[in-house]
């Protein structure tokens, strides 16, 4: 099964599963996400263990968190997850133009989310909640920062994919890459669901 010739001139039903390399890539990425779950799980447990070590004189979670910005960021990320689903659907229907469009939209929403988060951090630092202020701030910035870094990595990754598909077109080699990037993006959104629940909402209620 030579790698990059279309099977019957037309993209197979699920192009990402058409080749062994494709199946390996998708399964490998699923397992990688299992590992990432443990990585974020450990970061969450570190945060849970240290979240009430605010240190006297420093702003606590309740005073600090602005739920309105977090709500907007959540809506943005959730929408970007939807646009990435439409992108994968467009890929399955071999509509390259539509797929590229949805992917670009996903990237833009991702950038918006990231911009909001950086602005939020900027505000927190101004209110005295710096990285080395307390155990609470260190674990908060590491957890939410790691998620932000993953979003940034996803944005760079998807924009590279857009360029690659534009140059090389959609085939059984590039299809698994787009599918895997879509899964990555959903995973980021799933992690964000827990972050806004555990860090922000529970932080506010405590």
């Amino acid at each position, binding site marked *: 099964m030579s*790698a990059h010739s279309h099977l019957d001139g037309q993209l197979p039903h699920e192009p990402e599963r058409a080749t062994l390399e494709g199946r*390996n890539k998708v399964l490998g990425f699923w*397992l990688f996400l299992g590992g990432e779950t443990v990585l974020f799980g450990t970061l969450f447990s570190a945060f849970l*263990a240290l979240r009430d070590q605010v240190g006297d004189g420093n702003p606590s979670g309740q005073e600090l968190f602005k739920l309105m910005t977090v709500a907007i960021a959540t809506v943005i990320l959730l929408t970007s997850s939807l646009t990435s689903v439409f992108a994968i659907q467009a890929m399955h229907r071999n509509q390259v133009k539509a797929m590229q469009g949805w992917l670009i939209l996903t990237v833009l929403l991702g950038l918006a989310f990231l911009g909001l988060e950086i602005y939020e951090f900027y505000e927190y630092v101004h209110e005295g909640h710096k990285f080395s202020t307390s155990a609470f701030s260190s*674990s908060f910035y*590491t957890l939410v920062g790691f998620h932000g870094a993953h979003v940034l990595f996803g944005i760079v990754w998807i924009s590279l994919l857009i360029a690659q598909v534009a140059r090389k077109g959609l085939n059984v080699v590039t299809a698994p890459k787009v599918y895997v990037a879509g899964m990555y993006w959903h995973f980021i959104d799933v992690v964000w669901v827990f972050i806004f629940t555990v860090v922000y909402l529970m932080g506010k209620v405590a």
Partner: protein
Amino acid sequence: MAHAHPVKRYTGLMDWLTTVDHKKIGILYLIAGGFFFLIGGLEALLIRVQLWKPLNNFVSADTYNELITMHGTTMIFLAAMPIIFAMMNAIVPLQIGARDVAFPFVNALGFWTFFFGGLLLNISWIAGAVPDAGWTSYLPLASPTYSTDKGVDYYVLGLQIAGIGTLVGGINFLVTIINMRAPGMSFMRMPMFTWSAFITSALILFAFPALTVGLVALMFDRLFSANFFEVSGGGNTVLWEHIFWIFGHPEVYILILPAFGIISEVIATFSRKRLFGYSSMVFATVLIGFLGFMVWAHHMFTVGLGPVANALFSIATMLIAVPTGIKIFNWIFTMWGGSIKFTAANLFAVGFVPTFVMGGVTGVMLAAAPADFQYHDSYFVVAHFHYVIVGGLVLGLFAGLHYWWPKMFGRMLGEGLGKLTFWTFFIGFHLTFFVQHFLGLLGMPRRVYTYLDGLGFNNMNLISTIGAFLMGVGTIIFIINIIVTSAKPKTAGNDPWEDGRTLEWAIPSPAPEYNFVQTPLVRGYDALWKEKMDGNEGMSPAEPIGPIHMPSPSILPFVMSLGLFIAGFGFMYANNDWQAGFFKDLFASHAVAGAGLLITLSCMVIRSLKDDHGFHIEPEELTNKGVKA
């Protein structure tokens, strides 16, 4: 070669630097792992020389703490894990009838990141700042206030880079075993070594991220003044112990399960008998892997978690003795009724069984929390874990190396020298570590650079040192055996032990680049043995002869790991007190760290954009190599 664009084939050193062939990477892992094993062994000898008599001043207290830290870290992360990966790389694809692992490029990346991580860790000796807070690196001893020099930074960054390699390797083997088994090889027909590789990779996948987070938190504490473990800033030192041991205990099962797999293969082959109770062995391996995540706090009985946690983890730890017991009895009953041939490999395997049982039972004794209040951090614990790691894993690896050496190199290791290696190593091992049980019971604490006279420790420490030297002699004999064997011609046939049961003995030794001319059809457990018993010559093919697609070699994994290596230095020496001038601005601005990461990331981009279409080996090339279908 009717292929669109020619593919560069390298020779000599470049071939090794760019290889993505799982067999060559296996050999690279073996060489690097063996080299670090010798360094670790040297550190062990220096430790033993310092302890052979009370109040000895062979090494200073600082150097001793550095020796124990580097001995532990090197042996576990840079010697044992890589040699396990050498075995898994060399044998697992052959056992499941695959042409290579799922991601050859990532396999090479796994090796090179481990190699550069190990290099960075051992460069600390040259840089004069060696980690000295123990291989567990507890805080606050490892915090910037009590470990002021760069030592622990080398530990953190070296292990982080090596950890990436191991995690990536784990995923690679999981996908290989799930997706690329030969037709007919269902999960319950897989050889035992492949099963143990499968469970080990799953443990790696779920344990190493915890280590990654722990090391990141420690790195942030040390280099960016975070407060994860800084008591003054609200941090908590017991948090590090939790995170470390959540990784730590699955790690020791990652070490021992492959040895279980090797022992099952070697004992079955040399007893000419099918493995006794295969399905219960598989179930026991899965259960050990599962329970491995439930028991980590038995390393922390004395930390003060409270009676509820201590009771819970005592019972969970004792439960692990049940599946291990199942395995021990299954090995003994595999030999029951067999006709056992004591080759060097089988000597190690048969020697493994009683030794590991002694290690296992002391483990159960340690599991009883109130008793552990006396044992913990004493030489009783040192004796226990050396019994299970050296008596278990290292004997298992020696058995595996002697058993699969012909398949990896085409030559058989000398049986005479092999047996000599066994007896010197085996006797030296028991001499060294059996007495340490009693040292522990007499109250000699762990990690002490010296001890007072008149406490009754002197003679036993002397015996232990003599034993350590005997183990050193055994290792040297093994190296001589390797050198002598490498001079011999490659005469080993497909099945040099004549009783081969699994697929790797159905192909030439050393295996050709593409492993199988045609992917074999597996018709039962012990695939080759079934064909032999049915009177067929070799494996019946599952597909016609056709062009074989091979991945093309690439230098990128080497360069990516080099990038991480440079980034490691960049992070470490950013806040170093350079005199003003070029170096200061270079490092202080994190330019070096950034450059390193840039190299790695740009390699990833190149890898993503430039698709590797590999090359093809055409059918006529297969036949003219005299390889029959």
